[in-house]
């Protein structure tokens, strides 16, 4: 409850003081948390590790951009269109590779991502590496902005923060519903013992496809949001390796397969990158990837020492100890 209140009120002080930067950080946290939940469906629940989910972010961003530019569709309609296209393509791409298991599947997803890069850079229809630009109508109120994802001038940071918060909540609720449904059970069965699952009537190939398509839907929505925020879609931007890694990292660092894992992970990880950018500023170490070094170290530490993520730490035990100690004087410094 406290969290919800914090999340709702978070950007307001920054809006007052005009520090849009922090709103953007919040936006990125929520976006990656949402993508992390999507990734959790295929990676955490179904146990199939997808290392190239960014292709669906790209498909979503491009579809939405194209619908907006060429057909003048409203952003939300474009989002729906992006989701539909992304899911369709995901089904087509994934069904053939469902025979692969474990590592082989993972490499196939990376291979798909690597094939997508030159395609994105050279495909004329989407303007290749020159990208697409989303036109923004001037003027318009804040409410109008929320309805169309277009904010001319002020209110953009705030608007996109709340947009991402909304989409995050929708994704979270959707994931929760799935977790408790037949899909959730079947996904986990496929993960734990694929042959055993088939023997009790579960079509493992079908459910792997469904799981990946659900992820593709989330990534497409995220891609649309990102596209409208950036107002431009470039191949090396939407296919950037960070979109492959961050959502997955958020999910794992927070707790693989746990509903709130990605949110916790994103809250921990994204600010690291931002803090690095601000403290190093334009000094000698700036742009030297220090944040990624830290990410790498965090990943290795989690993998080696806390593979179940931060949520698996004994919070309850610590809280109990903390409460127990409250009346006693704090002796040591």
């Amino acid at each position, binding site marked *: 409850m406290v969290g919800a209140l914090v999340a709702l009120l978070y950007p307001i002080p920054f809006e007052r003081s005009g520090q849009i930067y922090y709103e953007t950080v919040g936006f990125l946290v929520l976006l990656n948390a949402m993508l992390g939940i999507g990734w959790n469906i295929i990676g955490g629940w179904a146990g199939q590790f997808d290392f190239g989910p960014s292709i669906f972010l790209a498909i979503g961003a491009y579809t939405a951009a194209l619908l907006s530019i060429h057909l003048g569709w409203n952003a939300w309609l474009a989002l729906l269109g992006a989701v539909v296209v992304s899911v369709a393509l995901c089904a087509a791409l994934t069904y053939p590779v469902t025979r692969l298991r474990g590592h082989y599947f993972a490499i196939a997803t990376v291979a798909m991502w690597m094939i997508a890069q030159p395609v994105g850079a050279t495909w004329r229809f989407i303007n290749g590496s020159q990208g697409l630009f989303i036109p923004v109508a001037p003027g318009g109120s804040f409410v109008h902005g929320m309805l169309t994802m277009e904010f001319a001038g002020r209110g953009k940071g705030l608007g996109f923060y709340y947009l991402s918060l909304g989409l995050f909540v929708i994704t979270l609720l959707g994931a929760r519903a799935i977790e408790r449904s037949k899909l959730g059970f079947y996904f986990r069965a496929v993960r734990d013992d694929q042959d*055993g*699952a088939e023997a009790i*009537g579960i079509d493992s190939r079908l459910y792997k496809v469904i799981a990946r398509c659900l992820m593709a839907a989330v990534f497409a929505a995220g891609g649309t949001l990102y596209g409208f925020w950036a107002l431009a879609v470039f191949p090396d931007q939407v296919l950037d390796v960070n979109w492959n890694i961050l959502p997955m990292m958020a999910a794992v660092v927070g707790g693989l397969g746990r509903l709130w894992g990605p949110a916790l992970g994103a809250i921990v990880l994204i600010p690291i990158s931002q803090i690095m950018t601000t403290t190093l500023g334009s000094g000698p170490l700036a742009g030297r990837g220090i944040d990624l070094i830290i990410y790498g170290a965090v990943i290795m530490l989690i993998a080696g020492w806390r593979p179940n993520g931060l949520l698996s730490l004994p919070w309850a035990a610590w809280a109990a100890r903390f409460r127990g100690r409250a009346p006693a004087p704090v002796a040591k410094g």
Partner: protein
Amino acid sequence: MAPLLQIERCTKRFGGLVANRDVSLTIEPREIVGLIGPNGAGKTTLFNCISGALHPDEGRIVLNGTDISRARPERVCRLGIARTWQVVRSFGRMTALENVICGALRRTNRIGPARARSLELLAFTGLAGKEDVAAAALTLADKKRLEITRALATGPSLLLLDEAMSGLTPFETTAAVELVRRIHAELDLAICVVEHVMEVVMPLSHRVVVLDHGEKLTEGPPAEVARDERVITAYLGDRYRGRA
């Protein structure tokens, strides 16, 4: 009465090894059939061919008139065959209840009814009270019970038990036999049991089929088969021939 399952001349090869050669047998509804034979006779291979984990190279397998020789395992299950495995399997990270729910979801799409049915079955197979234990944490005997419960939840008309008694203490074995008897008595299904323990198979089965070196040696009522010279020779070697 038309047979439930018909295996016609099933042949399965692994490279140069012929695991099943021309094996034919039928299983009638509500029958308990024991499938016995020395190690390497091809019993588990036959089970795998029936359940769809493997496909026969030659021959046919027909379930209730439907040819399932090339069917994938999930389809075979949908058509009414459930199985357990020689090395017990479970969804380790899920609780016992969740495991059975996965099976029950074969018959319903909603979690509520699936859950209710699963709790019923868990009580029936003697796992009441252990619903929320993680499957990986159960004892071997309980894991086997869970596997059977999960298989039953799919509502099969034929249950294949692959060495369900292996690794159990005599006490656990007796309890397991009791369970199989109860399952047969109260649920409307046929059971095919692969077993090494003669004291288990013979009293339990209506009919026994003997495999040896991939071929069907003989079949018949347990008492007959036990006296059959060829069977004795297959198990014990030539020295015991004639000592029935």
